[in-house]
């Protein structure tokens, strides 16, 4: 009798729907607030949101972010403010995907997206540069640097809503 009872359990589970996610063939969608690989955002006209303030680097508990800033000119304008990130690198193997950089960013330029396929055979490959991180230019936009009319951007950082 015990034997039949035991087999019944087995048979019951065989008939049930399979629990296993068939990764990598089937990718299970992640939650909306999942924190995966970073992306640097652009405005609709293609300008970079990042102003190179390095607050993300300061907030980073793992020291995974490296920013070097430079000054925008009207002939070569990357971001609407005075300053832009000349170098922007994130070491994915250092990053702990805590999202502090997102919180620290004053212009919402850095966002942790849903990409999680991050395995490397060489440690050096884990350093993502600005070209790899930045979003593609949105339709109708233009890739940076832009050449703009003098004084069309004279705010140090793009205008934001009142802090609340």
């Amino acid at each position, binding site marked *: 009798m015990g034997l039949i009872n035991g087999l019944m359990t087995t048979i019951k589970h065989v008939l049930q729907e399979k629990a296993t996610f068939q990764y990598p063939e089937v990718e299970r969608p992640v939650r909306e607030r999942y924190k995966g690989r970073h992306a640097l955002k652009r405005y609709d006209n293609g300008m970079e949101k990042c102003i*190179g303030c*390095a607050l993300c*680097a300061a907030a980073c508990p793992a020291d995974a972010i490296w920013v*070097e*800033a430079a*000054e925008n000119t009207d002939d070569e304008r990357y971001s609407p403010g005075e300053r832009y990130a000349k170098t922007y*690198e994130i070491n994915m193997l250092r990053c702990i995907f805590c999202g502090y950089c997102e919180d620290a960013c*004053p212009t919402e330029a850095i966002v942790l997206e849903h990409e999680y396929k991050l395995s490397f055979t060489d440690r050096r490959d884990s350093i993502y540069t600005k070209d790899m991180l930045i979003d593609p230019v949105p339709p109708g936009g233009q890739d940076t640097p832009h050449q703009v009319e003098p004084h069309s951007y004279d705010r*140090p950082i793009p205008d934001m809503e009142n802090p609340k």
Partner: protein
Amino acid sequence: MVTIYIDGVGYEVPAGTNLVDVAKFYADNDIPVFCYHPKMAPVGMCRMCLVEMGSVEKDKESGTVLLDEQGSPKIRWMPKMQTACTQTVYDGLAIRTNTQQVTEAREDIVEFLLTSHPLDCPICDKGGECPLQNLTMRHGPGVSVFYFEDKMHLAKHVPLGELIYLDRERCIQCARCIRFSDELAGDDVLAFHERGRALQIVTVSDPPFDSKFSGNTTDICPVGALTTADFRFGARPWELKEVPSIDPYGPEGANISLSTRLDRDSGGGIIIKRVMPRQNEHVNEIWISDKTRFGHHHTRHIDRLVTPLHREKNTLIETTWDKAFKQIIDKLKGATSVGAIAGPGLSNEDLWELRQLVLAVGGSEKSLGIWPATMSGGEVVKQVGIAKGSNFNTMGKGTVIVLVATDLEEEAPIWWLRAKAARDRGATVVVLNGRPTKMDRYAKFSLRHEYGDAVGAINSLTAHIVNGNHHKADRAEGFAELQKALKKVKADDRYAAAAEAIAGADNVVVFCGAEGVTLAQHAELMQACANVLILTGHVGRTNNGLIPVWPGANTQGAIDLGYTAEATAELLQNPPAVLIVAGCNPVGEDIAAANLRNADFVIVTSQFDTATTAIADVVLPQQSFAEREGTFTSGERRVQRFYAAQGVIGESFPDWKIFAQVRHAIDKSTAKVSAGAVMAEITKSVAAYSAMGYKNLAQVERQFPDVGGTDQYYGGTAYQNTGGIGVQWPVSAENAEAKLNVVPVSSEKSKAKGLLVVPTTLLYDRGMLFVRSEIMSLRIPPAHANFSPADAQKLKLQDGDMVEINLEGASLTVQIIVNETIPAGVITLPKCLSDQPGPFAPMVAGSIEKVAQALAATGD
């Protein structure tokens, strides 16, 4: 000492000091300030320092402090709050800083300042070390009743000259920059324009912000309104690692802090992002000149030599250290005569190892030369140099500062700044020079003498002192001869008043330069200055003595270790078989060094290709001051340490290591492994340096006033001194028993006829290191010579003409400037401004030919 009460607690503090400084230093009570700065006179503009103030009630008859029921002193409070920064402490002063009234006042001031301050902090260079940011965090209201939309929008990028940028929005109108330039630097270059909300800072000079101290305004700016072009957006302050260092250019030994950071652009190495002053109240307080601040670019310049070079078939080609060493060792072993010329930027350790090497291969002290070889008188300094513990901060009324044959602002800007500050406190300034300099504006006695007659001028002073019976001969040895010699001197009446002032002063400091003085005359000039000091008794006491305005950062150290300018002169005359030139460029700078080509074998250590490396047989890449450890000795004989800050460029080595290894191969002596070990050997061998171990040199002390440090109320984290304040060695005059030599000096003028070419020193020149800072290129003037109007007329020249000046076989092409301040018969020719070598000693000009007409535009 007086007693003051801060928040009910009594403190003993020195009388006459400023309340804000005292509260911070003694009571650890930070009274917030914006416009006040401890180094400048208070103005009370920003009202941030409002505190409740009162006085202790005292019994009218007995003067004892009245006590209340609790036993604490009874205080009569003023009805309204007062600014603490405009208050000097007096006995019985009481303040309250922790009441609701004070807290609210602070909140209101911060809120008000923020109504027109932009929210730039994320991109602002000051963000992270900003007093406004710090004070807002600590005393700000958190919320504002004002509308953010109503903020002023003003120009963000206003160049005040090519070095400093102004951000009009950020400015909170504290006027620190204006007051610094006006009061301390003496340059009337910045001013307020308009009034009220439209008030703005403008520069009123041409070229804009024409000051040698402009960078200091960015340090003292309490917001990010002033930024340097050099550091603009370079890094965030919290990412920087501060490395203590010493100014590699001037004899003042200014303490600096090298802010370093990794940099992707330069291949991922650690580089210097900016140079900041480091507080040392004995040396530079918190100021540095723009040359020090912006002149660091040579340390990582693309042209730096990275490998040893040796000569093969008349060209220099790359080689390895092993091969270069072998070549050097072979030559040195068989050398019939050896000599060395040491540059101004060599540390004491380098100089010591070079000296040991030269002595080991048969050289003598007579073959150790310094560069630039314009000044002499090391022995005089040993006797009557400025006494240990002297400090310009403590000089004021009763002090006489004498400037002899020097343009102090150009040669030693920090000394100029501090001497001027002493003058503003009441010191008397006496200037003796052949032409007016900037110090003449502040001098009580501006005494002009003929160029070449500086010794005669000092002799006149001495004669007046002796004739007027102002002298004290008790310590003077050889006074009888001097007196005899002075009888022949015709004392010039113009010097009488100055002589009296010097004799009657409490303290006398003499700055002795070498403008218009030959090397031989300079030895006499230094002795003449010493005579004055000894005969008036102004030696061996604090704030008394002689400061030679040496041409290099470590010339004093070189002289202490046995190097002399006389030896250089001899080496230039008769070059030895093997010559070592370390860290300098004699051939490219001085026409007298052309002879060096005749040396059989020339070894050069250098950071760059120069005219001297062009004649070298072996060139070794040396490290800049930023890559290694070492010590410099300032003109006030303060030995100070600098630390390794940036990554090593190429295969370069510090000079001491190069020379130690060569010596090791020759005499099998143990090669030292660290700069500290070399210094340990110096402490054992050189008496004056016995206390100069690295441990002693790294000692720091708490300094008053407290600027920088952890709270950063005065901007910048770099003021804090963590690297050591240095140690001075005492002069023999400080031993009260010691007899001091007074020696009669001849005041014979040269008899040669013709126009006298006087080389002068400019702060911004084309020296091999400074010229690499491209940011300063607009400040370096073109090669020029100053003619007096009379001479220009005689030669039919006008302002802007190009002329060829012929001098003893060499000729120089320069632009001429007609300058009324130049006396007739003299041409002043700034050194190191062109690629051609120029004269370093005054000499009579040969023919002068016009080679090009002035452009019409430059004529007016």
